[in-house]
């Protein structure tokens, strides 16, 4: 055996001995204190609660918006009524028309059609003219409140489309009316600005 080879064997044995000694336990080492943490399951519930809260709030907002849109729609289509053989707007009719104005202002692309109707007691042909005048009266009032006349079509059906056919005075009063129909912009209706 060559002297250099013998030296290498000695080094190798020593190295193995040292390595064997390092694998022994070290009882003097103190384990680290664990940091207190929130359990994983409670964390997930809170997110759900938050999400649910957000969803509820959004649903409430949607409901509020839907209600507001429905109220706007109801205001737009609310009919007005007239006295016998008259096309003058009553106080109640003016209030009903006033309620339409903010909705129309909030929806500049919205268009209305006003149809004038009469009761059955006049000449049915002359009633077509009366219905026309009733529809025009409402359009003129809205125009006076700043609504462009170009956004409002008018038509008369005279006594051809009654809503009440009983023939009583109450029925006649229900039939002497203007009806309001949204003919454009209904699908993007926004409530009136507050």
């Amino acid at each position, binding site marked *: 055996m060559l002297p250099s080879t013998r030296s290498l064997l000695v080094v190798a044995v020593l190295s193995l001995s040292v390595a064997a000694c390092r694998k022994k336990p070290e009882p003097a080492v103190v384990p680290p204190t664990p940091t207190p943490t929130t359990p994983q399951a409670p964390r997930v519930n809170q997110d759900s609660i938050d999400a649910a809260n957000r969803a509820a709030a959004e649903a409430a907002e949607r409901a509020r918006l839907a209600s507001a849109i429905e109220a706007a729609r109801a205001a737009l289509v609310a009919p007005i009524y007239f006295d016998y*053989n008259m096309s003058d707007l009553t106080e109640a009719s003016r209030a009903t028309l006033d309620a339409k104005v903010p909705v129309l202002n909030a929806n500049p692309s919205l268009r209305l059609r006003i149809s004038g109707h009469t009761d059955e*007691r*006049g*000449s*049915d*042909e*002359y009633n*077509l*003219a*009366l*219905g*026309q*005048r009733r529809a*025009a009266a409402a*359009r*003129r009032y809205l125009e006076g409140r700043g609504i462009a006349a170009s956004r409002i*079509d*008018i*038509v*008369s059906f005279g006594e*051809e489309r009654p809503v009440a056919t009983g023939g009583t005075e109450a029925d006649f009063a229900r039939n002497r009316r203007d009806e309001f129909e949204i003919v454009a912009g209904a699908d993007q209706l926004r409530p009136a600005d507050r």
Partner: protein
Amino acid sequence: MMGLRLWRPLVAAALMWPAVSDAQDSTVRGVRIGLQYASGTRPGVAVLEVKGPGRGDSVRAMLVRDLDFGDRVGIVGASVADLPPVSGTPNYELFARLGVSGIVQATLTPAGALHVAVHDVAARGIMQVQDFPLRGVELSAEWRLSVHMAADEVERWITGTRGIAATRIAFVRGGRLWQVDSDGENATPLGTEAGLSPAWHPTGRYVAFARPSDAGYQIGVRDLQTGTSRTITRTTSGSNITPIFSPDGTTLVYAYGEGDGTDLYAVDAFAGGPPRRISAGRGTDNALPSFSPDGRRIAFTSGRIRNPEIYISDADGTNVDLLTTTGFGDQQYRSNPAWSPDGRTVAFQSQLDGRFQIMTISLRDRSVRQYTSDSQNEDPHWAPDGRHLVFTSRRTGSEQLWVLDTESNRLRQLTRGAASRHGAWSPHLSHR
């Protein structure tokens, strides 16, 4: 034999009442050939059995009904069985004793004509003879018109006035235009389009009407010969309503309103062109025009002094005059004027106790005559004889057309079934 047995009692009764035939027979023989007719009297007329090939029973039924509905003659023997059988020359003496002044003897010829002879009982001879060609298939509208035309000529021979059997009434049923023969038969729709307020052209070929849509009403004219329609007005909004042709047929007058009231406009009926306004309602409603027979004046409804009343103006809209002045006892509503063909009166509807009734007003002294009082009666239109009116009445519970004889006040129901209104009487019609 059965017929003989049935008419024998009638003849026997006639022989017991010679005064009846004496009163009817006022013709002085040798002086005048023809029957005597005076307003308010009704000469007795008998229509004999219609012989020859074809629907003689239907022809006789139509002749009897047409003469009866003319209200100028009295039909003797509604059934053939009530009359003496006739073979050859009638027994004038026998018919005279039945109160018959004129005998209508019609025969269907193999050539497809209706040969009609009218006998003057007092003159003991035939007063008129004519062959009337029968067009179309038996019982068709065209064939029926042929028989109606014969009936009208017979009435003219007897009374001096042409009958109104060969006419039709346009009307509205279920929102669509219809027409019915003057005897209430043959009700048929005028196409399928919706329409209101039909009005006849003086030729009887066209009907103007208001055509509804969701965007308002336009004036349309339907050609009854071709079955086509065209739109006269071209407005983008508003209502064009209550059209009427001028008596010369060249002009259409109608009412148009979009916003500030409704006014009368005139437009060339066929050449078109821009309409010209002929009333100045200043924000009120002016509609339902009716021409005077000479075409120089127009009656219309206007609310220019609050409640609707009847006004008259010149055809160009000048010289407006209130026709239905106060004095009706009910200051609510008068509308739908119809100028009579003789130019003397205007029929209209007047509201009494909340319901419309049919009235006429004299243009000479403005005297008013009321014709109806039961139920609601409205929208009168004159027949071309200037004696009969068609109007809408609810006396049977639903709206139906009725015909009124303004001389005798006799009423007959014209339409049945579905509700009918806006009756407009045609001029005399003929084959084209």
